[in-house]
């Protein structure tokens, strides 16, 4: 993304310590505190005891940090009717997200290759028609999808969820790869074609080796989308294939018994850890995915 560069384009300002610059820094730091506060609150609450939560306040520092809430959230907390913690649902999400991300990215890569370098009559219309899939509210397809999954015996299974995520992820992955491959010089592909390289040969020898950056972007974008999905999970997940977002929602919104805020917060962090970790490790690609997803080619 352009913001990573040292930016020769932005206007030259005096970098001295004027009142204005102090004000800018104060505003920026206030904003940073606003964004960090919920994370701080979640983390500290998750290591406090319920008594400490009642006697202290949101920002008070935990005096006797304990991992009790974390182990309960992972292993024994009740999500609705069962009390096995988040662990099984966390693994459901892993089993769903990993294959769905890989398959939808590979499909997107080949599609993007065709749409960028093997244009045929009507391929522009095909591309536009595919892009509609990025925009529709999924509520408009879930009723027939539920029916089809039922007929395929895939209702309430992880395989069913994988299928759904692949189908509705293809539009985005195709968009990513197509926009990236358009920047691969046409002459390069044409030269290979004159030399007699065929469709797959060019993909394997030229296009695919260049694709690592865009595969990173696509993996991260798709993983975030699929891991964080709630609608498909709650509608098609049933009780066996429920992803972690659905389990977390059930846990947080359970109205019976005492609300254990520390367990709730530990669960929320557990559900957020994979995407948060990915963001910390590969934030650059994450941002690139966001901006590429927002600005249609």
């Amino acid at each position, binding site marked *: 993304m352009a913001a990573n560069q040292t930016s020769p384009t932005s206007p030259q300002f005096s970098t001295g310590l004027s009142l204005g610059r102090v004000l800018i820094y104060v505003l920026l730091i206030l904003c940073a505190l606003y964004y960090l506060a919920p994370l701080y609150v979640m983390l500290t609450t998750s290591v406090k005891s319920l008594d400490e939560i009642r006697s202290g306040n949101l920002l008070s520092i935990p005096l006797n940090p304990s991992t009790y809430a974390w182990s309960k959230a992972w292993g024994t907390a009740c999500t609705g009717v069962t009390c096995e913690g988040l662990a099984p649902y966390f693994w459901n999400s892993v089993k769903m997200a990993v294959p769905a991300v890989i398959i939808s990215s590979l499909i997107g890569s080949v599609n993007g290759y065709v749409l960028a370098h093997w244009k045929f009559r009507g391929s522009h219309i095909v591309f536009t*028609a595919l892009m509609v899939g990025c925009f529709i509210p999924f509520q408009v397809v879930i009723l027939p999808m539920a029916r089809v999954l039922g007929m395929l015996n895939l209702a309430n299974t992880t395989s069913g969820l994988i299928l759904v995520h692949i189908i509705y992820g293809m539009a985005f992955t195709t968009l990513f790869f197509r926009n990236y491959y358009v920047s691969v010089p046409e002459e390069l592909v044409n030269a290979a074609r004159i030399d007699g390289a065929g469709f797959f040969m060019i993909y394997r020898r030229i296009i695919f080796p260049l694709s690592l950056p865009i595969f990173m972007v696509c993996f991260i974008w798709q993983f975030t989308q699929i891991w964080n999905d709630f609608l498909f999970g709650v509608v098609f997940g049933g009780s066996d294939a429920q992803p972690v977002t659905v389990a977390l929602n059930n846990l947080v919104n359970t109205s019976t018994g005492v609300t254990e805020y520390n367990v709730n917060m530990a669960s929320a962090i557990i559900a957020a850890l994979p995407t948060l970790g990915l*963001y910390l490790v590969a934030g650059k690609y994450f941002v690139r995915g966001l901006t590429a997803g927002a600005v249609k080619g």
Partner: protein
Amino acid sequence: MSALRTTNEANTASKVIKPSGTKPPSRTNAATGKSTSSQFAALADIWLPRLVLSPTIIASLIFVYGFIALTAYLSLTESRMMPNYEFAGFSQYAALFEIDRWWVAAANLGIFGGLFILFCLITGLLMAVLLDQKIRAEGALRAIYLYPMALSFIVTGAAWKWILNPGLGLEKLMHDWGYKNFSFDWLVDSDMAIYTVVIAGVWQSSGFVMALFLAGLRGVDDSIIKAAMVDGASLPTIYRRIVIPSLRPVFFSVLLVLAHIAIKSFDLVMALTAGGPGTSSDVPAIFMYQFSFTRGQLGLGAASAMMMLATVLAVLVPLMYMETKGAAHGR
């Protein structure tokens, strides 16, 4: 901005390509190819791309277009627990418009969508302009503003549900700090619950708006700004009159994405208020889910889904039209 990205990637692409360019990968193929097999290869090159793309095209025709058509048809039947394929005209829509809860949901979408987009735009643009002033530790600040985007709306909802919890959360904090009369119970106030969704939504998405605007700001032509500075224009004037107006295409993208997030928002409301208290913070996405899956009113659910699609189209189509028109006029 997209142009900037493209040049970046083109550069890296050409760098990597050079070595393989000296040795065409296809030499062996061309050397051994006979005339019949090259004919075959030419044919394959015409049909293979279409063949490769066809599963996606078919899937898209069935699972996007076909399913929209099916939902549309379902909304014109009397389906309740089970689908019933007998045509019944627009009775479901008539019934939908008679339901007070639907209008509460629609009004909430208007309140939430409007305020969510407005506050995201303001905070996002402000942060981007501030960050554009050659700031130390810009990268770290950017990362902090953006991380909520990595979280799911369910996690965001759970966190804010705890912070906004009357009695224990923010309210208790203010009491501890000596503001004994402070009261903040929007979460359980049926008139105010929808505004708590705005608070959490803006926290989650405004960093993303900042990222888009910042990328746009970095793409603004420097020479125009320098010329204006030579003319003695002040910095705020330069931003107001030159820089921000040139971000027009970014505004469109941001509006497009935010409107889309707002209309389909389901998880955030589910986690934060679950549509409550009562149905006071209901939105169409929750209405659709509950009528279809917990109340056994498939026809009504389908009708409400079609209304959601209509809303998306009503927002997106004019925006896309304006954006492409803007592009055609050279911006």
